C-alpha cells in the first residue's frame, strides 16, 4: 500500500485520502484492486490482443455475412511449397524475420509464409490462427460451463448438507466414474459434425466434478464460521449468504481450480483430436496441429513452435488473470519475503551481533 502510494506520487495520494471517507462496496474495492494488479492487466491485454488477432485473421461467416480476414490465405488454400529461409534442402520454412539488418539479421518482415508451410503446402499461419480460434473456444466454453456447474453444485451441497448433499455428491461420484475420454469419443462419434462448440459444451457438462468437491469442502468449513451466523442474524437469506458471504471467501480455490481446468481443456481437446473425434480435418486446433506434426519435431521444428507458443501464452495469460482475481478478492495479500530480503536480514543479524 504505502509503496504504491509513494510510487504513484502525491496527487494520487491526496485524492485517495479525499475518497477514503466515501463508502465503497465490496465489488468496487475488488475491481479497484484487480485493476491495480499489473500481471493481470498485462495478461488481459495480451489475451484480448490474441483473441482479436486470431479471430480477425481468416475469412469468417457470421449469420450469412462474409467478413474478410486480414490474412491472404485460408486453411483450404494450397499454395506451392516455397523454400522460405531453409538451408538444408528443406522446404516450407518460416519467412518471418524479426532481427533487423543492422543487427546482422535479415530485416523485419513477414514474408509470404511467416510461420512456414506444412507438408502439403498449406500456409501455417492460417492453420495456427484457425487452431487458436478453436482452442480458445473450447477452453472458454469448458471453463465457463464446468466452472459454473462445479461451483453451484459444490456450494449447494456444502451449504445445505443433509440429503441434498448426499444426492448431489452421489451424482458427482457417478459422473466421476465415467471416463471423460470415452464420453468425448462417444459424443464426437455421434455428433462430431455438429461442431467444436457443441463438443466443448458436452465436455463442460462432465468436467466439473473435481471443482465441486473442492468447493463443497470449502463451504463445509466456512459455513461454521461466526460471520455466517452474524449475516443470518442480520436477516440475510440463504442465497445471499451463499453468494455474498461464503463464495468470496472460497474464490481462491475456485479460481485455481478453474484455471487448471481451462489449461486441462486444451489438452483434453488435443487428446480427443488425436483420437479423431475433437476437431475433424480439414479443421484444426492447436492441439491437433501439435499431435499431427509431432514426428517432424527434429526436422521441421516450426510446425511445433508456433502452436506451442500460442498454447503457452494463452495458458499463462489465463493463469495470471486468475492470480489477479484471487489477489483482488483476498484482502490479506502481502508482499512476500523475497530471498534478497532474507539475505539482507541475515546480513543484518550478523552485524547486529557484532555491535
Amino acid at each position: 500500500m504505502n509503496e504504491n502510494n509513494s510510487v504513484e506520487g502525491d496527487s494520487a495520494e491526496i485524492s485517495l485520502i479525499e475518497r477514503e471517507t466515501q463508502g465503497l462496496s465490496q465489488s468496487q474495492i475488488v475491481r479497484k484492486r484487480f485493476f491495480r494488479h499489473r500481471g493481470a492487466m498485462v495478461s488481459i491485454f495480451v489475451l484480448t490482443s490474441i483473441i482479436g488477432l486470431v479471430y480477425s485473421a481468416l475469412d469468417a461467416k457470421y449469420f450469412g455475412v462474409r467478413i474478410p480476414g486480414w490474412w491472404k490465405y485460408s486453411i483450404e488454400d494450397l499454395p506451392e511449397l516455397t523454400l522460405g529461409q531453409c538451408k538444408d534442402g528443406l522446404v516450407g520454412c518460416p519467412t518471418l524475420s524479426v532481427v533487423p539488418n543492422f543487427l546482422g539479421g535479415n530485416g523485419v518482415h513477414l514474408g509470404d509464409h511467416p510461420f512456414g508451410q506444412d507438408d502439403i503446402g498449406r500456409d501455417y499461419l492460417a492453420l495456427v490462427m484457425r487452431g487458436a480460434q478453436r482452442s480458445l473456444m473450447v477452453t472458454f466454453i469448458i471453463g465457463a460451463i464446468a466452472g459454473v456447474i462445479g461451483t453451484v453444485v459444490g456450494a449447494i451441497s456444502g451449504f445445505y448438507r443433509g440429503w441434498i448433499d448426499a444426492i448431489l455428491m452421489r451424482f458427482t461420484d457417478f459422473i466421476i466414474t465415467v471416463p471423460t475420454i470415452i464420453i468425448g469419443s462417444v459424443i464426437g462419434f455421434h455428433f462430431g459434425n455438429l461442431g467444436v462448440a457443441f463438443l466443448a459444451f458436452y465436455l463442460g457438462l462432465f468436467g466439473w466434478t473435481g471443482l465441486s468437491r473442492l468447493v463443497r469442502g470449502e463451504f463445509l468449513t466456512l459455513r461454521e464460521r461466526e460471520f455466517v451466523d452474524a449475516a443470518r442474524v442480520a436477516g440475510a437469506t440463504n442465497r445471499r449468504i451463499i453468494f455474498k458471504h461464503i463464495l468470496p471467501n472460497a474464490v481462491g480455490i475456485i479460481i485455481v481450480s478453474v484455471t487448471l481446468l481451462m489449461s486441462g481443456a486444451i489438452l483434453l481437446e488435443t487428446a480427443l483430436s488425436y483420437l479423431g473425434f475433437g476437431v475433424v480435418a480439414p479443421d484444426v486446433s492447436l492441439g491437433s496441429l501439435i499431435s499431427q506434426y509431432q514426428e517432424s519435431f527434429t526436422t521441421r521444428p516450426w510446425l511445433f513452435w508456433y502452436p506451442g507458443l500460442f498454447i503457452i501464452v494463452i495458458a499463462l495469460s489465463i493463469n495470471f488473470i486468475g492470480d489477479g482475481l484471487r489477489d483482488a478478492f483476498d484482502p490479506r495479500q502481502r508482499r512476500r519475503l523475497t530471498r534478497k530480503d532474507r539475505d539482507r536480514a541475515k546480513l543484518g543479524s550478523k552485524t547486529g551481533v557484532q555491535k
Partner: protein
Amino acid sequence: MSEQVLKISDFNVDFWVDGVWYPAVIDMNLELNAGKVTAIVGESGSGKSTTALGLMSLLASNARMSGSVQVKQEEMLNANSATLRKFRGREVAYIFQEPMTALNPVYTIGFQIVETLRNHFDMGPTQAHERALELITLVDIPEPEKSINKYPHQLSGGQRQRAMIAQALACDPGLLVADEPTTALDVTVQAEILDLMRGLKDKLNSAILLITHDMGVVADMADEILVMKDGVTVERGSADQIFNNPQHPYTQQLLGAVPKLGSTKKRTMPYSESAKPAPVLKLTDVTIEYPKRGRIPAFTAVKNFNLEIYPGEIVGLVGESGSGKTTVGRASIGLLPIKTGSIEIVGKDISHATQKDLFSIRRHTGIVFQDPASSLNPRLPIGESIGEPIFLAKIAKGDALAHMIEDLLDQVELPRSYRNRYPHELSGGQRQRVGIARALALTPDLLIADEPTSALDVSVQARFLDLLQELQEKLKFACLFISHDLAVVDILSHRIAVMQNGLLVEEGDRDAILLNPKNDYTRRLISAVPVPDPAEQRIRREARLAAKK
C-alpha cells in the same frame, strides 16, 4: 544464594518487515535464580512472547537478535543447532498457551512424554514408560494408567495443560518458560494449574519465567515482575512493590484497568420491582439438545432453563466453559432450535417461528460474538458489514445507508475512514467495536453479547466496557451479557445468572449474587477469580488448600 539459571543482558529483537527493521524487544535485562518466579507482564504486542521464543532461538527467519542470553552460564544466542537441541527440553522447557494445538493430536500423551525422555536420555522404552507414568501421577491427572494411553482430544482442557506440564517437566529442566499457561482455561481450573505449578516449582527447585497479561495470575505466582510496553521494560520490581506502589504510569494504568470484584457502586434498577414492564426476552423451561451425530450420542446442553430480561437492564450470564451459556445466547435469537419450552422476544414466540417470522423478529435483536476475527466476514469491508442489517431490513439504501453507517461508526468511536478497511487491518478492540456497531445497526431492543471481551487486552477491555455502558445508557436496550469473567459481569450488569452443566444454579441481583452467594458453585467461582493483590491471593490460596484437605 541459589543458583542462577537465566541471565539475559542487553537483549534486542528486531523483525524485518517490508524492508524495515521493527524493534520488538529493546534492551531487555533479566536474571532468574532457581526456585524463583519472574513474570513478564504486558499487553499484546508488547514483546513478551517474542522474548520467550527468542531465548531458545525459536523466532521466525526474519528476526534478528543481539545481546546475550545465558542459561546456566552457557550462551544460547546464536549457538549452533546441536547445542540448542541439547538445551531445549533438557534445561529449558516450554508450556504453551493452547494445549490443544501444542500437543500433537495423533499421538497419545504418554507417547509424547516418552519421546521427550528418549530424545534426551539413554533410556529403554519400558523405563521411559515408567517415568512417564510417574510424571503423569505427579501432575495429578486422574487414573494415570489409563490416561497415559489417551489422546489429547480425550482429555479436558485442564488435563491437557497438565499433560503439557508433565511433558515439560520430563527432563527436570532448570527453567520453565510458561507462555500464558492458563489463558485458555476456566478460573477454577486456572487456580488448580497455578497451585500445581507452584507446588512443582518448590519440589523440583526450578525457575519459572511466567508470561501473562493477567494481573491476577501474576499476583498469585510471581516473586519478581517486569512490566513491558512496546518492547521496553518500563518497570521492574518485587511483586509487593509493583502491586502496592507502582511507579510508572503505564503500570498504574494497567493495574487500574483490571476489573475488580465488588468495586463498582450500587446500580439502580431500570424498573421498579412492583411494576415490572413486559420482558424483552423470556425463556421458559427451555431445553436444548445437540442431536445425535454418527456415533456421538445426543447431548443435552441446557436443561429447563428459565430467565426473563426486562427493558433497559443488563443481565450477566456466568459459567465455565461447557456450561451451556453460549448455547442459551444463540438459542435466544433463534440460531439454534430448542427441544422443549418456549422463547419469547418482545412478546413473540420464536421457538416455532418460520424463517419469515424470524426475519421480522430479528430486527429487534442484535448479537456481538466472542471472536471478532471470525465474526466479521474477512472479504467484506467493515462499512458493508455494519450496513448489512439495515440494507437487508430495507430501511435505507445508497446515500442514506452511507450516512447511517457513518453515524454508527461515530457512535462506537471509530473514524469514518475505516469503513473501507477490511477486518484484518483493524486491531482486536476496533474489530469488536465494529461488531457492536453492526449489532446496534437496527437499534435493537435486545442485545446478546457473547463473551465480547475475552479476546481483548485489559486496557482495551476497560475502554470497551465503558463504551458498551455508555451506549446502553443512551439507547436503553436490554442486554444479555455472557461471560466467564465475574469481574466483568460485576461492572456491567444489574442482575446475574449463574450456570453450571446446563442448569441455572442461581439468579438474582448483582449484589445478592456477588456478596451473598447462596449456591456452593457460585461461591467457588467467586473465590477462584484471581485478584491483582499478592497478599489477598496468598490468603485465598491457603483457604483453598485448607478446604482441599
